[in-house]
């Protein structure tokens, strides 16, 4: 099983994703420069956090034109796993691999904090090792994490059980006070119709060690590796 971490100019959580895969998941992993187009040797692709192209114009709006993104689309179309974290989620939305958009936080500030998210669906390759309804404590670090979509999209996401994570309080209640950025329906992470592409604003790769304040993110990567192992 081999992972690839895409590196755009301005990616800055690429090292963190790489570290988690190699150290905590214990699997081979490569950095993939954004001009590369051959993804045949990979089993899963991670689009990491950061500020691709400085987030100029709009977060993720320029990265979607990088050569690697056409290959990522083909890769996903074949049913392979693609995980977009933070800026990666923004890029997947801009590239049309996920619905909706991520706009400026409602407080207008960049927010870096630990938040609670509830597992809404464990019926994905990224969350099957998690307990549905369980609460994870994960870091967020973004200025544009306010998920928006139209009513029809929201209905579809709900109907198809594609809302994967929602911001909640520490008891798992979905409240407005627990919504850090104003996201519609407290949405923190979603997947596509085929369930092989997921995007989330929180950083599970920053929550894989107790030393760093939380290890709740480990199960996301464990699920991912488990899915790949089962498929192998």
């Amino acid at each position, binding site marked *: 099983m081999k992972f690839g971490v895409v590196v755009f100019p301005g990616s800055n959580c690429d090292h*963190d994703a790489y570290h988690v895969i190699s150290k905590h998941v214990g699997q081979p992993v490569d950095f993939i420069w954004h001009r590369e187009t051959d993804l045949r040797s990979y089993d899963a692709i991670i689009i990491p956090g950061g500020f691709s192209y400085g987030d100029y114009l709009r977060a993720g709006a320029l990265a979607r034109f990088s050569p690697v993104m056409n290959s990522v689309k083909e890769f996903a179309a074949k049913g392979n796993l693609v995980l977009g974290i933070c800026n990666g989620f923004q890029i997947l939305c801009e590239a049309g691999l996920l619905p909706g958009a991520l706009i400026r936080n409602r407080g207008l500030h960049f927010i870096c904090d630990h938040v609670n998210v509830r597992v809404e669906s464990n019926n994905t390759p990224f969350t099957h090792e998690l307990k549905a309804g369980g609460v994870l404590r994960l870091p967020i670090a973004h200025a544009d994490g306010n998920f928006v979509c139209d009513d029809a999209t929201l209905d579809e996401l709900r109907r198809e059980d594609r809302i994967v994570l929602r911001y909640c309080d520490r008891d798992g209640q979905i409240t407005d006070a627990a919504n850090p950025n104003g996201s519609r329906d407290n949405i923190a992470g979603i997947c596509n119709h085929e369930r092989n592409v997921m995007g989330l604003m929180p950083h599970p790769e920053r929550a894989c060690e107790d030393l760093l304040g939380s290890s709740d993110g480990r199960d996301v990567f464990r699920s991912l590796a488990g899915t790949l192992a089962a498929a192998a």
Partner: protein
Amino acid sequence: MEPITPEVIAAHNLTPEEFTHIKELLGREPNLVELGVFSVMWSEHCSYKSSRIHLKRLPITGERVIVPPGENAGVVDLGDGWCAAFKIESHNHPSFIEPFQGAATGVGGILRDIFTMGARPIAALNSLRFGSLDDPKNGHRNRSLLAGVVAGIAHYGNAFGVPTVGGEVSFDDAYAFNPLVNAFALGLVRKDQIFFGKATGVGNPVLYVGAKTGRDGIHGATMASAEFDEEALEKRPTVQVGDPFLEKLLLEACLEAMRSGAVAGIQDMGAAGLTCSTCEMAARAGTGIEIDLSLVPQRETGMTAYEMLLSESQERMLIVAHKGREREVGDIFRKWDLDAVVIGQVRDDGRMRVTHNSEIVCDVPVKALTDEAPVYERPMKPMSLNAGSADVSSADASQARVPPLSQDISTGSSVRADALNADGTSALPANTSPQNYNEALLHLLSSPNLASKEWVYRQYDHMVRTNTAVLPGADAAVVRIKETRRALAISLDGNGRYCAANPRAGARLMVAEAARNVVCVGAQPIAITNCLNFASPERPEVMWAFSEVIDGIAEACRAFNTPVVSGNVSFYNETEGRGILPTPVIGMVGLMEDVKRVIQPGFKNAGDFIALLGATHDDLSISEYASVCGVQSDDPRVPTLDLEAELAVQTACLRAAEAGLLRSAHDCGDGGLAVALAECCFSSLNREVFGADLDITGDYDLATRLFSETPSRIIISFDESSLGDIEEVVAAAGCPMTLLGNVGADRLRIESDGEEVIQLDVAELESAWRSSLKDKLQAEVLAAGAE
């Protein structure tokens, strides 16, 4: 070219004597370009002409020191081939003129200083000082300066991808017209891969890499070397605009080029841009350098040689490559979509020669710009001192808080008291008994200097790179070194009030506090960097305070065996004749052998014992309590620091931490014992609040025992079963220890002589502490976010 008239010389901030000296060094009149080059290189900012003779008294050697001051950053040995490169630098002047870009480019500049050494930045911190947020007249401006500076730091650091892990924010009216923005950065580098800003190897090509040159920031260094007048805001064009995305590319490209082995020397283009990098690289290597400005990538047309040499456009570097390998370097930068152009070569003639459109526009000896820059032994005059002397009348003593030049801001404490009244809550009556200490504690915890700085650090990505083992808000930040078991602890500390009252004693206190903060998280202090913020050096009392501060830092650094490896001096922090308090900021770096032994300030377990290492004395006179609660002292003096007692306390805490005996440790500093105890009770990342039951019966009056800011004290908590071992460790270190009580459920209860003096819900205390800054700044949020 414009003739060199006395007006032109004055406009370049050069004195007639300095101009005469330039003519002697050249053996002729300089042309305008050369005059510009001399003016920036001889500016206070670049030449350290007023401070140099004093800085020589700082200790700069030690077994861990690999690169002492003089390079882009200092480097210390961490063991196993790893080194840390770090430095702190001021960006005060630009941040007052344009807070967002001023602060952002301050962060950009210090990050370049770090990766110029070959080190990948792993932590940023900053020390910020503003005028009072509640001031009826200037409060709005002070709040929007804070909001703008914080947004600027977040903008740059977050996008660059370095965690901003801590620092300090404080308020005093002395900074209303001169906010202080000091940026610190630290990077990791292998001992055998350190790079230097040296133009070595005659015939080696000189490459310009990074962003294109524009007309921004021309004469920024000169601007930062003069006081402001009412037209300060017209200097906005001297502030540069930062692009963190470009800097991130520059970082990756530079590190890749360095790994290739094609780079002989490298230097950041910071203050005085192309001029400074060119002649400093030649000076350090004892060579000469020749460049052709026509080859410099430009983003504007029609730029003159003068403009190009003095531009401070950001995100640029000068690289000296090994001859024949310039193409390799160019390829790496092109991969990152950056310019890399050969613009000249290293020569052996000791001259800086610049051509533009085939004409020589500047031809001067490198040494004339660097080694021969003026050095001043400026006159000094002691300001009235009161520390430790009992014969100062109360009237004089209250003035001694601030230097004589800034008498009209010495009303700072009364402004604060007024503001409390404006809130509808009255300031506490002085020296009346019995006092309501519950009220006093709530007041203190919600005062801007002591309140939680969460509003600030929540805007900084403090976790990127997954190394942050202690998040902002603790005594010191801790970042682990992934490749080893070790971690680094970092603390920034300054206190203008102390240094104004007694600069030498104040400076000693700052070094001690910074070391103590690092010890509180379980690290051994190893070295410091410092940022020395002062008013005009042309005022004898300022120069005297500067000299005293140097001696104070030197003395304390010797005691703690923490040499000074880098630093920065910022003079002329004054506006319309009003200067700041003398404000040295100490950046202390500590090393811990095992990151798993890290200690945090918060209590961990109900029933644990709570003890105070060190002894409390009467140090209430210029405390936060005196200031916030309006209690005027007849004898204001800085706390007395006994360096031996300080070392004993630090040794005791460190040994106990290393032996795994401690559950928590917290510096008992600003606000005194009651404030520190409350902070230990507050909730944190993975745990709820705790309470505490304590008995503080002892010498001195109650207010002193609760709020005195005696240094050399640490609050520790530990399991009952560790008491014997801890007593042994503490006794061996020769440190006094007092058992105060136990960790409890959710109330803070303090009694003395059988009477309850404080009894509060910790949740209420925490809410006062946590919401204070946020409430004050709510109005500024939208304005700053819109940037």
